[in-house]
């Protein structure tokens, strides 16, 4: 032991005696690991293990040919009876097996034999992805205090949505949850969360000077939220969620920033903050399940949003970004910036087999204001409406979200797609009939649009995302060098505003699942869907009307051959007939027709904690546009396999 002057030796010895002994055992540890390997093939000239990577800042991990592996280690510690902590460590995704050796050095734009050119994206380094501490202090009403990483799933899609899977622990904050009244009569959750600098604000950022010359500060930006829940009775549950987003910038005219630090000028070595973006979102929802009518559930929700952008600190991306903006830059009648406000509501009535004949009904009314926008709402992997929606296909699933910030990126070709439902108003009726091994559903949805308007200002205020009409082909969507689908410009899934719109849509969906008797786990799945989408555009011009009709038919067979092996195969046919799909008011519009056949087959094999899956897809697509433009066709083979082992 090092000698310390005076009584130091004694003091250290006493200190060591009082300190908890370091323990070599792992009884207070939980560790779990996972190895995930993905293989991708496509008959094209790309390489990588991610179908659509970052569309804006093109990176070097997107592509369709390659095999990649990542490792994840989760450590959870039971520090004491009232304190827990955890971390997630994971290797960087992006290195292909073919890379062999990349040490993390980057030569921008260069791929050479040095093994030192592709940067950290290909170096498989282990990164701290998430860290959190959770404690239950003896404070009245408080059940848990959490500090650190979280996926924000304690709120909802209309306010602050659950972070998408790839961002699941990028967010951090401080959270309190507890009960104000016993027996869940009134419980609360409140938190402050660091705003993500990359997407939660005007221009998809909160103050990055490289992207927005009017802004430069993001470390001061936070979101605050409060949730109150009450189980009023066994039949009625109420919930309120309120959230505010605060993106601040230094007041550029603070005396400290405009001249000499002279007290006579008012400079006092402090810099005030000015608002760049301020958002409010709130929801009040209720679920009523009367005991006397146990087949009935009624859910209702009312939401409101208010978003203010200060154009002094946020570049107007409607005007300067070709209409690509996750926020409205609204102006008042005198040309000054004002808040963009919107309300939304929906009511869902569910009747679970009320007649005891296997027939259930769901009826939903929805009315989402033309300017409701949850800037930090769920961006994907959620669905707020009952309807199958417009964007969902047969193999490709989909959902609707009340935000302009929908993110169909960093995903593979077999993953769901999401569309913005801002401005939608209408109703959905879904009937389900179950009889033995047969399940049949039918849906009818009518959608009107609160966004219908003539002469909307899409040059300065309302983002139109450039492409406002046409079915979006999620199967053939590309992100080679541009976010939008460069070969088949359908509607951008985020586009809800158009300069001239008079639109209505109805859709009919029917599905059936039939478990074939005598064949173990064999099920036939059928889906048929028709969408009729009409937009009269300029009311005074009968020649510019868009009318899209889509028909979809899908059949697939899945079969659980053994306890470990499940197979599936299917076929999907899609036909779109679209009048006046492409063009402009100045040059006129032109018709197009799309025919696509897609075949998929694959299997999953689960054995002893390992899960292997493989899927092969072929699609042929004809886009018929002559005579105004050349036709295009696709003959695409692609596959995706994964092996996942967790322990």
């Amino acid at each position, binding site marked *: 032991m090092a000698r310390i002057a005076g009584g130091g030796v004694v003091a250290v010895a006493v200190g060591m005696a009082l300190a908890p002994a370091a323990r070599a055992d792992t009884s207070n540890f939980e560790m779990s690991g996972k190895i995930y390997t993905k293989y991708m093939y496509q008959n094209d000239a790309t390489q990588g293990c991610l179908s659509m990577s970052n569309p804006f800042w093109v990176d070097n991990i997107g592509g369709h040919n390659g095999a990649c592996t990542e490792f994840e280690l989760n450590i959870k510690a039971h520090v004491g009876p009232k304190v827990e902590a955890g971390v997630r460590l994971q290797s960087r995704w992006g290195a292909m097996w073919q890379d062999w050796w990349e040490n993390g050095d980057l030569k921008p734009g260069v791929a050479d034999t040095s093994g030192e050119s592709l940067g950290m994206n290909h170096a498989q380094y282990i990164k701290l992805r998430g860290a959190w501490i959770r404690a239950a202090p003896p*404070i009245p009403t408080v059940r848990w205090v959490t500090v650190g990483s979280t996926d924000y799933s304690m709120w909802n899609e209309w306010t602050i949505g659950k972070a998408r899977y790839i961002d699941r622990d990028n967010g951090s904050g401080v959270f309190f949850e507890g009960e104000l009244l016993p027996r869940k009569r009134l419980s609360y959750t409140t938190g*402050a969360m660091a705003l993500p600098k990359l997407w939660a604000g005007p221009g998809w950022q909160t103050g990055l000077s490289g992207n927005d010359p009017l802004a430069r500060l993001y470390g001061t930006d936070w979101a605050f939220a409060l949730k109150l829940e009450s189980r009023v009775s066994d039949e009625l549950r109420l919930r309120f969620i309120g959230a505010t987003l605060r993106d601040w910038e230094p007041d550029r005219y603070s005396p400290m920033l405009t001249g000499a630090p002279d007290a006579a000028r008012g400079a006092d070595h402090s810099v005030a903050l000015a608002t760049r973006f301020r958002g409010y979102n709130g929801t009040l929802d209720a679920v009523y399940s009367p005991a006397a009518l146990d087949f009935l559930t009624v859910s209702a929700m009312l939401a409101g949003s208010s978003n203010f952008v200060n154009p002094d600190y946020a570049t107007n991306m409607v005007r300067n970004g070709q209409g690509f903006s996750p926020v409205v830059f609204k102006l008042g009648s005198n040309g000054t910036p004002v808040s963009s406000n919107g309300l939304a509501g929906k009511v869902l009535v569910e009747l679970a087999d009320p007649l005891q004949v296997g027939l259930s009904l769901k009826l939903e009314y929805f009315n989402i204001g033309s300017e409701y926008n949850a800037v930090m709402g769920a961006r994907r992997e959620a669905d707020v409406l009952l309807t199958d929606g417009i964007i969902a296909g047969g193999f490709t699933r989909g959902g609707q979200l009340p935000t302009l910030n929908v993110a169909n990126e960093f995903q593979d070709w077999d993953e769901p797609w999401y569309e913005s439902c801002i401005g939608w108003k209408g109703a959905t009726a879904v009937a389900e009939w179950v009889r033995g091994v047969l399940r049949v559903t039918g849906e009818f949805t009518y959608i009107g649009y609160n966004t219908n308007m003539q002469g909307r200002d899409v040059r300065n205020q309302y983002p139109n995302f450039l492409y406002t009409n046409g079915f979006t082909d999620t199967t053939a969507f590309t992100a080679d060098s541009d976010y939008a689908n460069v070969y088949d410009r359908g509607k951008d899934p985020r586009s809800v505003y158009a300069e001239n719109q008079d639109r209505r849509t109805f859709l009919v969906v029917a599905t059936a699942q039939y478990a074939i008797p005598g064949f173990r786990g064999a099920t036939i799945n059928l889906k048929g869907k028709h969408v009729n989408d009409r937009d009269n555009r300029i009311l005074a011009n009968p020649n510019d009307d868009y009318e899209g009709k889509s028909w979809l038919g899908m059949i697939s067979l899945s079969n659980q051959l053994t306890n470990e092996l499940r197979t599936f195969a299917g076929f999907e046919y899609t036909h779109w007939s679209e009048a006046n799909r492409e063009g402009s008011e100045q040059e006129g519009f032109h018709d197009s027709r799309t025919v696509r056949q897609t075949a998929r087959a694959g299997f999953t094999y689960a054995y002893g904690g390992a899960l292997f899956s493989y899927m092969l897809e072929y699609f042929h697509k004809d886009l018929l546009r002559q005579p105004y433009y050349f036709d295009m066709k696709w003959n695409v083979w692609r596959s995706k396999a994964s092996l996942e082992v967790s322990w």
Partner: protein
Amino acid sequence: MRALLQAGLLALAALAGCGVENLVGSAIHKDFQRPASVIRGAAPWAGATISQITVTDADGNVLAPFQQSLENGQYELRLPSAKYAMLVVHARVGDMELRALVPSIGAESSVSGVDLDALNMTETLITEARLSADGVKLRTLTPATYVATRVLMRAGMTSAGPTQNLFLMVERLAAHFLANPTSGNPDPFLFRVPALDSTFATRTGSACGLPSGVACSAIDAGWIARNPFDYTGGGCPPSTTCSDSAVFDAALGAVAQLYRPAGCPDPNHIRLIFTVDFNQGALNGNCGVVDRFKWATDKPGKSMFLAAWIYTLDPPGASDITDQNSPGIAALFGNATPNVIPMYDDGTNGDESAGDGIWTVTFDVPRSSPGHLLRLGYKYTWGTFGAAWTGTEEWPGNGRLLEVVDVNGDGFVYRRDVFGDEATNKDFSNLNTSGTGSIGWTTALHGCGPEAHEQPFTLHNACACGSAWHTPTSVGPITIPCGP
């Protein structure tokens, strides 16, 4: 309820540190106004609108206020905060243009009383006439000298005499125009900028872009011919009205001889101009390309500053002029504080060409004389207001030298340097390959005279002697008020 209160307080306390401070601070913060140089005055005609009023610099370039207003006959123009000199406020009122001169405005300051009336119009005409006759540009005027001359002109307008007579003519003409409908003519008929020759006679024809024989008068010849008008109050004998501008022109020429807005050379002060070349590729004293960011770092928002001080080291020799015998001179240079004396590359404040990478700052300092020399140390910094030396200065330690002597006798001491050049004018650790590592007040490394003096220079090249002296045209020498 108590539990709710406890939980709320606890949550607030715990969330402090997660942006709650900003939430509170911003709730009471009202955004600061943009710093401005503000001009205010009266627009005393009926139906005045702000769109009628513009402001130009001394060269006639339009300046754009970032905010402007007009209420109850009072206008306000908010220009970006800076130092301005010899501005002209214009008001187009029908077929007439009224003008008023603003000798100077500082950064974050205001000037009031710039009224667009007959008084200011008369003063402006006298000034324009005199400068025209002397062949002097408005931008070369020394504001303090002009202000002193203005006092004399105003006094003349309030007492009987030729100046008051001229003022009364202007007043009658302005009133007449305000009472008459406009013709929509693109050029004003009244109060054009007069052009006079050296004898104070009104020029004619091509001298002001008019047909031969037509007077370059403040009054449009065609208009007065079509609209005879008694602007003198006694007619233009033998007529009881005036159908040409001859009487007015003669009066203006006579009055212009009474005042000298440009003043006379100041025997005791001299205008000192520092200019620094910040262009990439400029050559240093060894004829090598200067590395501007060898010591300084670059980032958005930076601009050029000068830090200077009274030189006290001996050797090579301290300044004779000091803060003790010339109070305030150290503060004039910012007391050697970095990043507080801004330089300009926007065509203002003595800068000759906007955006050319040559940054300029001017000072009015005591004139040196034998045995009474002003010696300065200085260096340039590429920084932001109030920033420290590190990362902004040309080099650490050492400085440049300047003996403030008007070598070529043009009324200026004009210094040109290349930013970051350690091989020309640097007192110690001088890297000039033909030098000794240091320079004094007489060291000459390039055959252009002492490095510590003003020199002829070659553009973007600190290793070649210039072929001719440079006399700035964007600003004049210091003058003082003097008689006609």
